[in-house]
């Protein structure tokens, strides 16, 4: 049997099984879900380097499922984080109600994402895309009482995106008579300019919603904040990548890199790519600014996710090998660090029951592992060497500057600097500062939750000094699927035409210096005396133990005053107003049905008379 349908069958099967058998007890449902995932990921690993195809017919359409290096690349992210999330869930979800439902939706989501990446034609792509939408919607609404608006907003925006994609797909089908990617890339140049523009816009709508690209991001903060943390990490880490995958397909597979044939070039990038890059950069900047002033850790991470996805979109838009590699590298990084951070925030929530910075603080000594994970996570997210975040950001910046897109570069750098602010906010708000008395007994989370997080942090360290294998994979993708000539890289050295950076050296320098300084500093001088967090210098006043001086409310107040103009505007409010106005307008329609039987008869007669009057048009 072909491996791809086998994997899909396994995943969907374990979803259903977990749901129905899982009614019996907890271990069974989580066990089934986990086992299904593990087995299917084993099969997935055997697919490495292969390019299989599975063609069949359904409802009169030819469907193709295929695996190539690109699908493998994204599949790797899905399974990697999927399994870790499943392990994490075994503890995180214990004791919660409707775990069977959760397992079902989780497995379905993972299965549908895998379905998306192995789709070799637009129809199955859309098919799985929709399954992904509703199954993730089910997880967004998992916490029933609070989640309704967020869930519906997510679903409606996804539906609008998906339907615009559907129109694009069917426009293509009407012209080519085939859904397959191959036919599309062969036939792309035959489309008129107007068609190309329409198709690109419609697809960008769909992918932009999933990738939470500004201004289509408004569902993301609420949906991320409300869904169970274990899923949120998958949501942000992998599900949003499906939008990125879509962008990759659109710009490099569908159009076969021939966009510049019909559009003008700006700085060596075709116009759609250039516009996309700007969208990405502005998403990065604005989302980052909004992230800074959040009080809810998950909302902060959600906006940060929007921002980081902006970088990826930016890299993809640039279109040069180094940009695309940077984007794909950053996609991997984003999966890792968003996975880590959401899991860590989930761990904090698991123990304390809150995600608000204003209520947390000083947990470092209570949850040291989680703190460590968050620490590595924020270093990665901020792109500070020597962790892996730097490598991908470096590539993206090099790509921008190589193309001399200076303003884009300024915006991107500014966004990156601003991200330091929310990074610090995240770690300070939760782990540093003074601790509230009620959290004195908080314990570290169990190993099943610690394990996935720590594993992810190992990855970011590893990729930080030795990205060679990943770059190989990316180069393979670029060569075989995207038709881009990969840029030069060494074992641990990244080259651009501009300059180079040796990640191994950076890591070594930092590590060696740190070890030397640490050893000298700790050994040469006397042991320090440890005092409590509340034993502080307060200008003569001695606050009691019970007074908490944690500075967490309105942490960046001067900042929010400074950029108030940006924060004041909200795309979300705009959409919601639009939606409620439209709803009011639609509501008028039902007054047609007056309730008077005679009126209805009148309609019938008038209709008849009207059609009779214009009957000559029907002939």
């Amino acid at each position, binding site marked *: 049997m072909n491996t791809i349908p086998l994997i899909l069958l396994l995943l969907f099967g374990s979803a259903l099984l977990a749901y129905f058998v899982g009614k019996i007890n907890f271990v069974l449902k989580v066990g089934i879900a986990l086992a299904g995932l593990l087995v299917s990921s084993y099969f997935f690993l055997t697919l490495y380097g292969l390019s299989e195809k599975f063609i069949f017919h359904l409802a009169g359409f030819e469907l193709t499922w295929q695996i190539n290096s690109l699908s493998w690349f994204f599949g790797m992210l899905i399974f990697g984080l999927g399994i870790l999330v499943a392990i994490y869930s075994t503890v995180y979800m214990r004791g919660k109600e409707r775990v069977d439902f959760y397992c079902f939706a989780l497995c379905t989501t993972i299965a549908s994402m895998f379905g998306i990446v192995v789709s070799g034609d637009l129809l199955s792509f859309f098919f799985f895309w929709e399954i992904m939408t509703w199954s993730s919607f089910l997880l967004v609404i998992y916490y029933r009482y609070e989640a309704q608006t967020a869930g519906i907003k997510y679903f409606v925006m996804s539906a609008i995106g998906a339907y615009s994609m559907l129109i694009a797909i069917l426009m293509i089908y009407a012209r080519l008579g085939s859904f397959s990617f191959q036919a599309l890339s062969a036939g792309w140049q035959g489309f008129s300019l107007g068609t190309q523009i329409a198709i690109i816009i419609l697809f960008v709508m769909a992918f932009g919603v999933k990738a939470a690209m500004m201004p289509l991001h408004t569902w993301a903060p609420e949906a991320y904040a409300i869904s169970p943390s274990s899923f949120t990490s998958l949501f942000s880490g992998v599900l949003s990548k499906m939008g990125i995958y879509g962008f990759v397909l659109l710009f490099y597979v569908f159009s076969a890199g021939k966009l510049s044939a019909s559009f003008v070039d700006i700085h060596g990038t075709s116009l759609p790519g250039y516009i996309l890059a700007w969208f990405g950069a502005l998403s990065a900047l604005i989302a980052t600014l909004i992230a800074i002033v959040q009080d809810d850790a998950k909302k902060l991470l959600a906006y940060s996710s929007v921002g980081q996805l902006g970088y990826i979109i930016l890299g993809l838009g640039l279109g040069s090998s180094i940009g695309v590699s940077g984007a794909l590298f950053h996609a991997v990084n984003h999966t890792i660090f968003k996975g880590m951070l959401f899991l860590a925030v989930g761990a904090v929530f698991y123990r304390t029951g809150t995600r608000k910075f204003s209520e947390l603080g000083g947990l470092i000594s209570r949850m040291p592992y989680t703190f460590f994970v968050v620490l590595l996570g924020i270093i990665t997210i901020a792109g500070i060497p020597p962790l892996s975040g730097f490598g991908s950001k470096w590539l993206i910046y090099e790509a921008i500057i190589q193309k001399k897109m200076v303003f884009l570069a300024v915006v991107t750098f500014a966004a990156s600097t601003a991200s330091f602010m929310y990074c610090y906010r995240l770690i300070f708000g939760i782990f540093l500062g003074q601790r509230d008395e009620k959290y004195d007994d908080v314990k570290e989370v169990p190993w099943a939750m610690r394990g996935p997080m720590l594993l992810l942090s190992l990855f970011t360290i590893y990729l930080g000094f030795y990205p060679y294998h990943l770059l190989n994979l990316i180069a393979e993708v670029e060569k075989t699927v995207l038709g881009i000539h990969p840029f030069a890289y060494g074992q641990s050295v990244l080259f651009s035409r501009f300059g180079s950076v040796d990640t191994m050296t950076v890591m070594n320098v930092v590590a060696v210096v740190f070890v030397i300084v640490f050893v000298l500093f700790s050994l040469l001088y006397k042991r320090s005396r440890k005092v409590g967090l509340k034993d502080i210098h307060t200008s003569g006043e001695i606050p009691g133990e019970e007074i908490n001086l944690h500075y967490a409310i309105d942490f960046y107040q001067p900042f929010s005053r400074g950029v108030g103009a940006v924060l004041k505007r909200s795309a979300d409010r705009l959409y919601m107003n639009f939606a409620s106005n439209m709803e009011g307008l639609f509501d008028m329609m039902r007054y047609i*049905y007056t309730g008077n039987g005679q009126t209805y008869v009148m309609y019938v007669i008038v209709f008849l008379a009207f059609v009779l009057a214009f009957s000559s048009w029907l002939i």
Partner: protein
Amino acid sequence: MIYYVAAFSLILIGTYAVLVKKNMVKIVLGLSLIDSGVNILLISLGYIKGKTAPIFSTPALKAQNMVDPIPQALVLTAIVIGLAVTALALTIVIRLYDHHKTLDISKIRELKW
């Protein structure tokens, strides 16, 4: 010709009643009128002046001398149907009157929008 005129005027009167009269009994009456109009129309379609009923009452009678029998069969059916509808309508009107104590259709609009 007179049949056609009669038929159409019945239909129009019926339609007028259905559309304008507020009293539900009158509306039902209007429906019956429309029905009758259509029935007359059907009959007259098959009627050929000077021909006889389509019954082979005498052996000499030829098919050419008869009116078209089919419309009559149709009308028979239609009459039955019309009767059923009228009967049902009246029962519903009675029930409505029981509940609402009025026959004014414009006052019975609890289901709307």
